[in-house]
């Protein structure tokens, strides 16, 4: 039996918007649903990729997961306890066991501290090493992410984008976490660096049973690193399951569209998805993908499909899934 680390129970996060009215007269209240009934469980040792277009709520989901934003409805649990209510020892444990890599890696590093102090901060704070051993540990971490020892004395402003990302990852590893939560941690890196970091993460995962929650745009990264995948669209998870099965035989038309949009060697991009992702403010009834779905039938615009298990650990939110038709 595997212990559940993270549980999101019907999490909803909505923002009230005002505006659009004339000067000094606020417009009607509107709700933006960034997350709308998300269920997700992550067990120890799992690796989950969150994929989806910009604005689909991936980053909000991560913030709710980390307890940085409290959901308007539903609960986010860590080890069975509400993540925003963790107290004392449990809170300290959460802070050490879960490390986050920010999408804005440069912004997540204090520009006034050299790399040594940046990476040493969690080591010293959690008292994982003492005295000169701290420096050795920092050097070891820098080596793991492929940065030379000379980086130690550099400030973030003296490093390139790729180097800053690697420092951010080294710092996340510094607290010897059980879980790494990463928002686009390897995107924008050159391919060889990306490969090095992905190999490092896979190795840590195998050796220490590291749990990974990874936001990525890159389905290739998702398939290499993560056993599970969750495809998000407009604040909902529309399809989840084992990565290999889903990428080989997608059930949701949106997953299919994402796969089609992935560039391949010597092939034109087939059937790009029509239209923009609609605004998450005041959504129409029915399936939220219906407007862009090539397989939509009139029923799709009336019934909002829930995420239903479809066997083999997979779940899909669609009334006309591709797998059923085949």
């Amino acid at each position, binding site marked *: 039996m595997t212990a559940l680390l993270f549980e999101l129970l019907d999490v909803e996060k909505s923002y009230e918007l005002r505006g659009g009215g004339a000067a000094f007269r606020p417009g009607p209240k509107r709700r933006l649903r960034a997350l709308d009934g998300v269920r997700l469980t992550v067990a120890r040792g799992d690796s989950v990729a969150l994929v989806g277009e910009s604005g689909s709520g991936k980053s909000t989901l991560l913030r709710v997961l*980390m307890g*940085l934003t409290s959901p308007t409805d539903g609960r986010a649990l860590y080890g069975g306890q509400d993540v925003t209510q963790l107290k004392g020892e449990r*809170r300290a444990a959460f*802070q*050490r066991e879960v490390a986050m890599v920010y999408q804005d890696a440069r912004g*997540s590093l*204090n520009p006034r501290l050299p790399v040594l102090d940046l990476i040493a901060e969690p080591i010293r704070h959690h008292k994982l090493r003492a005295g000169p051993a701290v420096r050795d540990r920092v050097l070891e971490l820098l080596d793991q992410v492929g940065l030379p020892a000379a980086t130690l004395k550099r400030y973030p402003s003296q490093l390139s984008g790729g180097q800053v990302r690697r420092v951010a990852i080294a710092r996340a590893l510094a*607290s010897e976490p059980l879980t790494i939560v990463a928002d686009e941690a390897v995107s924008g890196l050159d391919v060889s660096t990306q490969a090095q970091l992905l190999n490092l993460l896979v190795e840590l995962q195998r050796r220490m049973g590291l749990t990974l929650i990874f936001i990525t745009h890159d389905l290739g990264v998702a398939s290499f690193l993560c056993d599970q995948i969750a495809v998000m669209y407009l604040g909902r998870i529309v399809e989840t399951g084992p990565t290999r099965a889903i990428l080989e035989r997608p059930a949701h038309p949106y997953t299919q569209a994402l796969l089609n949009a992935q560039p391949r060697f010597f092939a034109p991009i087939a059937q790009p998805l029509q239209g923009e992702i609609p605004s998450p403010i005041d959504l129409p009834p029915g399936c939220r993908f219906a407007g862009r779905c090539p397989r939509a039938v009139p029923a799709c615009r009336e019934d909002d499909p829930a995420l239903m298990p479809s066997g083999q650990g997979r779940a899909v939110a669609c009334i006309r899934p591709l797998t059923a038709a085949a």
Partner: protein
Amino acid sequence: MSETLLVDKIARRPAWWAGLGSYIRHRPFFILALLVTLAFLAIALLGTAVTPFDPTFQDMEAPMSPPSSTHWLGTDSYGQDLLSRAMAGARYAFLTGICSVLLGALGGLAVGLMAGLAGGRTEWFLMRIVDAILALPSLVMAIAFIAILGQGVDKVILAVGLALIGPFARTVRADVLQVRALPFVEAAGLMGIGKLAIVRRHILPNVFFPLVVQATIRISEAILVSSSLSFIGIGIVPPTPDWGLMIAEGRGFVSFAPWMSGVPGAALAILLIALAIVGDGIREQMDPKQRAGH
């Protein structure tokens, strides 16, 4: 032949020297202003050791004499040597300028930090007080404080320093609000770093450097305000050689002895302009965004 020699010469020149050379060529005004400021500072530090006369020595033989070979820049109505007095005045200018800015910066740091970190009612209350202070020009504020505190060098420093707390507090608060919202502060919180440590290690250093830059720029304002106080006659008391005081003393004789106000006036103007240019230069250097490109 000559070409190879030139190349040889360039190659042998040390890198930092070449860097300094290009720096001088690109920013001649900054270097000039820096040299002027340093000269004033040196005179202020050396004091009576370098003045040709004792600044309070009264040469009864030559009152109000125009510039001559004995008194290079002339004398005032008591026969005191103007060059010596102007040089000695630099000490008071820097003393009041630097001390009052330190006072204002520390006070502003405390108030701004408190307002920026506390938020809510505390912030509202503190910032309304600062707004009220800022509604008055710093000279008027300083006059009000002098009216309460009385006259003298230490009182002037205190008055000008208190008057400067407002503008410093406002910039510090704005910086705190900006830094607080940055991801690295949130990241430190996620790691479980304590609130005090976050303020000390992550917020303060990022607020402190802009404050230092702000302070160098405000020194000239502080000098101007303290000189104005002396000029009005409520700041530093005679016979202390203070520029504002000297300008005021020479005011009545400006039609036939213009050097009496002219010498301290020129000293004040030159120092203020030099300080303003130096302050701007330092601000450009300290900006981490501009520095990142190098």
